[in-house]
């Protein structure tokens, strides 16, 4: 019986790979496609040198990186300022695409949102391995963002 189920799975695999003919990885909610040439909705929570907030706009090294990523994608950044939990809520409900702040690779939010690899090369991060938060399982967005950050600030 397991042999038969295995064969079915193999066929399913072929269908998934060939039939969809999509890029791998891709986003279940299509965030990266929507953002490209559109608007990147970023939530910012102030954190020392890393993220400064002034009149609803974020600045600082981490905010600049996100602006750079948006530029590469031909997108405008729409800033939202809030506390970390508000930002995580925003990612979960789909009102935000990225959240930045003083989050590190030890962040407790990892079961509610996707967390990028930690980056130590960001000015103002000090010893911390800074991470960015994304909607859970938006793997194409995560891959694109991580590839961008690898180029800009090193792995």
């Amino acid at each position, binding site marked *: 019986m397991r042999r038969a189920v295995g064969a079915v799975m193999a066929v399913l695999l072929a269908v998934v*790979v060939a039939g969809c003919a999509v890029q791998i990885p891709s986003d279940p909610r299509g965030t990266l496609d929507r953002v490209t040439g559109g608007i990147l909705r970023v939530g910012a929570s102030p954190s020392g040198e890393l993220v400064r907030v002034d009149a609803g706009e974020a600045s600082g090294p981490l905010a600049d990186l996100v602006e750079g990523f948006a530029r590469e994608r031909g997108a405008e950044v729409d800033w939202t300022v809030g506390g970390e939990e508000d930002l995580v809520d925003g990612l979960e409900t789909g009102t935000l695409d990225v959240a930045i702040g003083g989050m590190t690779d030890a962040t407790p939010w990892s079961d509610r949102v996707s967390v990028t690899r930690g980056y130590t090369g960001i000015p103002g991060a000090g010893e911390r391995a800074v991470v960015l938060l994304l909607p859970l399982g938006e793997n194409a967005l995560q891959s694109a963002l991580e590839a961008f950050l690898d180029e800009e600030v090193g792995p």
Partner: protein
Amino acid sequence: MRSMGRTDLPVAQREALRKAIRWEWFTIGYTSVTIVLIALVVGGSQAMKTAWIEDMLSLIPQVSFLVALLLIRRPPSRRFPYGLHRAMGVGHLIAGVALLIIGTNLAIESIVGLARAEHPAIGTVRLFGQTIWLGWLMVAVMAVTVVGPFFYGHAKSKLAPPLHNKVLFADADMAKADWTTTVASIVGVLGVGAGQWWLDFAAALFISCGIVWDGWKNTRSAVLDLMDQRARTFDDEEPHPLASRIVAQLERQPWVREASVRIRDMGQVFHVEAFVVPWRGRVRLDRVEAAREGIAKLDWKVQDVVVVPVTSLPEETSSPHGGGKETGP
């Protein structure tokens, strides 16, 4: 009288056992490497996590086989008059229960994940100056590790019948089905890659159902043997043919009117109680002794034998004349 049970083996069995031990050590080594490799890439995929835990669980039958072998070599003693053969059954039971509990746990986890629509997150890694999606590495690792179980699964399934070893048989059986786990986890990961997040949980559920099924089969078989069901073949398919051979051998004796037998499986060897109804009211001791030795010569598994003269055959024992009723599971 010298000791009745047997703890040494004939040449063919000793050879098979030597090979089995070598394969078990090889499997443990291979699986450990697999576990480390998967640990490096496990990421946020439930299917990968499930396959990883299954690999860890698959070590239990091998370890319990090797531990039980150390014990069953000990000769019977006053304290353990039947020897320590049941150690094999205990190991079998432990393996079965572990698979059953953890498999159920994993199945629930994947159902909950599916119900909550938790999209699995699989990011990238930086490798040789390139940013690579971790999913590709998962697929690569699983594709590399799929080959091993084919070899040791088939090798062990050839060794299980001559040794009449159910732990080895179950172990080989699971190894032979292991490729379905690997394929499922690859499907799950590629599903996530294609944006079909649910495929990950479907694959995880498939793998955990396989674990539960293995656990159920092993637990059932181990419990039935520990509860002394009548001895069956190594794959539990049918009553062991030795029973009728023993009865036939006894009934060939001129002094025996009818005979029946009660055999329990001690793990690798049997414990035999043979009942004989003699033609006359008196039985010579040397005939009973000769019958006992005759049975012991039939097969290496039946060394622990008692022959009991009785006036009529107990109903629950196996004989060709209708005494072999089988009720219950």
